[in-house]
Every structure is written in C-alpha cells, then in structure tokens.
C-alpha cells in the first residue's frame, strides 16, 4: 500500500524548499551560529595577556602525556592507590571483623539460641548474620579507601589524560580509551566499573566496556588471589621468596585479566558488535583543585554505600542458603554433600573440585564469600576439625591452618592455580549482573556478560589441568 502524498501544504512547501538549500546546509548552519557566538564573545570578553595558569597546565600536560614520563606516572599513581587500598584496609578490616565476628557474634548466638528454635537461630545468626558480617568487614574498608582516592584523581582532571595516553591500545581492539578508567574502577568493584562506563558516549564502545569489565579483578577477589597464591605457590619457593612469588603470581593473574579483556573487546567488536555505531570524542578538561571533603563525602555516598548496600542485600539470602545446604538433610547426607559429589567429576576435570564449584554457586551474590564458603564446606564434608566453631559456620583461620586444611582435603598446587584462574574468569557477581542489566536494559547482554567469562574460565582451567597432568 502507498501512503497518501504529503497533504499538509505547509510541510510540503518546507520539504520542497529543502532542495534549494546548499548541500552542506547543516555544516553552514553550525558555522553561522559559531560565527555569531564568536562575534558576541569578542565584544564582551577581554583576556589579559598570557595566563600563567594556562601555561602551567600545559606544562603539566606535557609531562603527563609524554611517553617517557606519562606511563611511569600513571603506573605509580595506580600502584599507590592499590597499595593504599590493600595495605590500608588490613587494620580497619581486622577491627571490624573483631567487633562483628568475635564480639557481637557470640552474644547474638547465645541470645538467639536462648529465645528461638535452634534451626531458626542457626539460619539467622550462623547463616545470614555471619555472611553479611563477613562481607562488610572484607569489603567496606578497601572501598572506603579506593573510591575516594579514585574520585580525587577524577575531580582533579587526571583520568581523561589516562584515557588519552592509552587510547591507541584500546582503539586497536575496537574499544575506547575511557575503557581504561572503567577497568581501573573495576579493580575496586565491577558494579561501579559498569556504571562508570556511562562516560563513554559511543554505543559500541560502551557495551564493550560493560561486558568486559569483569576481567578487572575486583576487591572481592583480590583476597582470594592473595591467599591462594601465598599458601600454594609461595610455599613452593624458598621461605625468603614466598612473598615475591605470591605477589608475582597475583600480578600475573591481573595481567592475564587485562589481556583477556583486550582480547574479548577485540572479538566482540568484530563479531556481536560489528557495525554497531561508533564515535570517538574525548575532552581534556582543565585541571581543577578538588574539594577534598566534598569529594570524600560524595564518593562515600555515591559509590561506597551504594555498592555496599547492594552487596548486603545479596549477602543476606546467600548466608541463608549456605546454612541451609549444609544443615538440611536429604537421605543420609546434607544437601551440600549431594551437590558436591554431583559436581565433583566435572570439577576435577577442570582442575578444581566439587566444593569449589558449590562455593562459587553459593557466592554468586558476592565474590567475597568464596573462600569462607570453601573452608566451611571443606570442614563439613571432610570431617576435619575446624577449630572451635561448629560445622556449617563460616570462619577464618591463619594461613597455615587453611593450608593444612586444604591439603588435607586433597588440594594440590594445580587446584590452587586453577582456582586463581577461575576466580578471574567466571560470571560476575549478581550485584554486577543486576547493574549490567540496569545499564544496558538488555537481557541478551547480561547473559553474554555472564557466560563469556565463565566459558573462558572453564576452558582455560581444563587446558591447564590437562597440560599439568600430562607433564606431571
């Protein structure tokens, strides 16, 4: 069927007139408006000589974008932020853990056991409370340091320079230089990294940044990496080198993550996202002295509390699930036993074990609880003594204790390596997935973000296990 010819004479005339305008009419119009802006500005603005401030900013820019000085400064700043985060978080983390786990927990437990049925007390206190307390004590301190530090760099105007320096690298894989920042933010928290992708105004590059953000190790996964690297890889080296080897291994995993994110960006931009609209624009704003107190305040409200709130919301039910699977019985055994023995054959194939897989499923809400879940399930299922705590309860113990517990359960260096790889490459936590859905409004891209790293992780682990076992 054919539409009637345009009937409105006014619109018809407007359309006919369009053919009489110059071909580059749109350009001419922008030019004309700019010319009038310039004329008005010329009459009303006076500049006094050359600005020392501007000259200073130019000198700073020269240093920060020079190949010989720009990259060292960038690396140094990033290292300082990470070091501040990891080193600075230990003390408050221990303090919060001391209060929440050692002081409040026994009181709560005693009170609950005295007033509630035992199963409900276990579910609420041993399950939900402990999981949430763990997440808060592990997650809150690093975020309280990382996000404000990062926000200060942002307000200063430094971050666009990082995008400028690294753009070439990202352009080669079909991405935007600003992805460097979403990744850096991802080292704090992937959900925050996904939100940060808003600054990328090109649709294709923004999706790439969102989908690949998970390859930036978030602070929920750093502790896992450090612990496992220390007790399995560090221990293989002479005692004096333990720390160096462990740190090197963690750094290698982080580097692998960076490489994988570039690789996935490259693949995505040539397959699923091929042809998607793509533009580049990057404004380098003047450096501005940040308002430190205000920055601390807003970054605390906007990022830290926001991310923490979501994590708590997801940790509560996860805690309940952990308690339930390890305490509910089906037949002669707990649900956890059945799940672990069901998954074990597959898990062993990829260098892990059933306990780790179950822990990862339970820990979908928050990566922080992987290690405690693994320990708890190991104690429960291998019947080893786990200190003074009851079975089915998350706990923490020293490196040596963990090492003997895990090797006692049949862990080898292979298990350690595969766990580190799998910790890097698996589905993002549910907080991040939810954020991805909210940002993309697309079920498809949420699923891609979940499946892509998981598949890569399984394949990598299987390959490593195969090679390792063949050589051994």
């Amino acid at each position, binding site marked *: 069927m054919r539409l009637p010819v345009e009937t409105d004479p006014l619109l018809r005339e407007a359309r006919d007139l369009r053919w009489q305008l110059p071909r580059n009419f749109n350009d001419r119009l922008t030019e004309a408006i700019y010319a009038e802006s310039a004329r008005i500005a010329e009459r009303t603005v*006076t500049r006094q000589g050359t600005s020392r401030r501007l000259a200073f900013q130019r000198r700073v820019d020269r240093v920060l974008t020079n190949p010989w000085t720009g990259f060292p400064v960038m690396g140094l700043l990033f290292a300082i932020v990470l070091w501040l985060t990891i080193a600075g978080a230990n003390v408050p983390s221990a303090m919060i853990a001391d209060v929440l786990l050692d002081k409040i927990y026994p009181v709560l437990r005693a009170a609950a056991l005295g007033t509630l049925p035992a199963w409900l007390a276990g579910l609420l206190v041993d399950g939900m409370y402990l999981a949430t307390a763990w997440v808060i004590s592990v997650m809150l301190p690093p975020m309280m340091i990382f996000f404000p530090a990062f926000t200060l760099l942002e307000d200063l105007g430094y971050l666009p320079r990082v995008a400028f320096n690294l753009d070439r690298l990202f352009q080669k894989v079909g991405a935007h230089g600003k992805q460097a920042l979403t990744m850096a933010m991802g080292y704090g928290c992937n959900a925050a990294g996904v939100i940060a992708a*808003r600054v990328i105004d090109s649709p294709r590059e923004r999706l790439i940044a969102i989908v690949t953000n998970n390859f930036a190790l978030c602070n929920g996964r750093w502790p896992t990496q450090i612990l496992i690297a220390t007790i399995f890889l560090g221990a293989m080296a002479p005692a004096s080198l333990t720390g160096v080897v462990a740190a090197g291994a963690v750094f290698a995993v982080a580097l692998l993550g960076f490489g994988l994110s570039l690789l996935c960006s490259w693949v995505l931009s040539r397959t699923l996202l091929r042809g998607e609209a793509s533009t580049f624009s990057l404004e380098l704003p003047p450096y501005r002295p940040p308002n430190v107190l205000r920055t601390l305040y*807003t970054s605390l409200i906007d990022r830290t509390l926001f991310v923490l709130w979501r994590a708590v919301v997801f940790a509560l039910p996860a805690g309940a699930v952990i308690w339930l699977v390890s305490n509910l019985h089906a037949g002669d055994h707990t649900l956890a036993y059945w799940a672990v023995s069901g998954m074990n054959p597959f898990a062993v194939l990829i260098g892990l074990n059933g306990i780790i897989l179950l822990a990862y499923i339970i820990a979908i809400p928050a990566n922080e609880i992987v290690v405690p879940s693994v320990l708890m399930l190991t104690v429960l299922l291998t019947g080893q003594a786990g200190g003074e705590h009851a079975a089915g309860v998350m706990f923490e113990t020293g490196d040596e204790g963990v090492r003997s517990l895990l090797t006692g359960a049949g862990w080898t260096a292979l298990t350690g390596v595969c766990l580190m790889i799998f910790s890097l490459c698996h589905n993002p936590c549910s907080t991040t997935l939810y954020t991805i859905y909210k940002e993309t409004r697309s079920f498809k891209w949420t699923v891609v973000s979940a499946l892509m790293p998981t598949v890569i992780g399984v394949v990598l682990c299987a390959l490593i296990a195969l090679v390792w076992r063949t050589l051994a």
Partner: protein
Amino acid sequence: MSSACPPSACDTCAVPRGPAQRLGLDVGKADYVVALAGNPNTGKSTVFNRLTGLRQHTGNWPGKTIARAEGGFAYGGKRFKIVDLPGTYSLRSASPDETVAREFILFGKPDVTVVVVDANCLERNLNLALQILQITDRAVLCLNLMDEARANGVEIDARGLSRELGIPVVPCTARSGEGLPQLLAEMHAVASGAFKPSPYRLKLAVPGLREALGRVVARLRARFPGLANAEWIALRLLEGDSAVGEMVSTGTLGSLSADHASQEAAATGTTGAASKEIRA
C-alpha cells in the same frame, strides 16, 4: 528586541533576597518549572546541587549526568521544580541526549531555562545558548566558573553580554555559592513574568536560507498567530524534524504558542516528567 539594558530583577519586583529553602527530591507540586541546560563539564550539576541541596556526584569529567535529574527548592514564597538536562554541545542533532534536552525545552514548557556556561570559553558555550534562545524567550544565563576565569585573566562584561543576548546574565561561582542569590532573583523574575526577556535571534547567514525560512515562517504565522519561536520551528521543518512536523500538521503547536502565564493546562510532552501535572 529592546535596546535598553534589561533591568536587574531586583529593581523591578519585590522578591525578597535571601537563601533558597532547599527541598531536595521532595518536589511535590511546583509553582514553576526550571530547566537547567548547558555544555558538559560547565558545573551544571554543581549549580543543581547548590540549589536543591542534593548531592549528585559532580566529576571533572564531561558527561557525568546521564539520566535527567530532578529536584526542588522554594524561593520567594514559590516552589520551584528544577530539571537538570543532560549536558550537550548543541540542540540540533538526533542523539538521545540532545533530543531529550531539546524536547524538554520545547514540550516541557519550563517557566525559565537557566543556561549554565563556562566563563573560560564563552564563545564555545554561546553556541548552545544562542540555540536555546531560538526556542524559548524565558532564559537566564548563568556565567559559571568565574573564579577560574579570573585566575585565567579572562574578564567578561556581563552587562554588555546581557545587552547582546537580551536576557539576564549572572556571573557565578557555583562551587563557592558566589552569585547564586542574584541567580535566584533573576530566575524568579523571569519565571513569574515580572521580567520579560526579548532574546537575540540568530541571523542564520546561510545562502538561500533566509528566503526559505521567510516563506515557511509566513505560512506558520498565518496558521498559528502569536507563535513566539516561528523561525526556529521553520528551521526544524527545513531540517526534517518529524516530531515538529507532526505538531504542525496536528495543530498541537497552537497550544504551545499561547502565552505561558495565562495557561493553566498541564504540560504534555514526550519526556517522562514533562507529562506530569506540574501546576497546582
């Protein structure tokens, strides 16, 4: 356009000076709707936070405000709803940001549009300001980041600029709060109709354009007498804007051309909040 310098609002109306009462997100029914427009990274969000008492994150990083933020404050006995539009360089393209901003200023019928510009690069920022003045008469220019401009040795003749543009111009430093009381007073004066700006209209010096515009404008005037922004509407028609074309053929343009102040009808528009009832 009157050649006289627009008088300061405080000379012509009896609005009390003083701080605004911040209402945060609790807007409720508003007497006036304020649109906050401007280029990215001009401190628009800082102005917004200052006025509403909200704490939206404001990074030194263009494009922080993606979703449209709303907030409220009370001033001079009236409740203002303020809408922070996405930062854009222009209002002419079909990109989502620019469409949202353009259609809100047109269909959302704000009682006053505050154009936040960076005093350090006025020329670039006027590009957007001049486009906004094509669409609406009711505008106030907020000359932000004056502290930086002073440090950079930039001096701006605000009164001269006000004469050129035909709207009130207020030098501000939103971060420290400098100039905000005057901004509030001017916003109030324009929103209440106590001061009626007569903004500068672009000359649009493009070969063939004036003649084509003239013909379309004549037809528009014949159909919708009293249309304030006939030239801009004609330009959009020549550029092939189908949303504007539809308004012309269905006649809804007529209701937009009626005088703001006398109009009691609720605003209707394509953007979310604009379709809500905004007047008591």
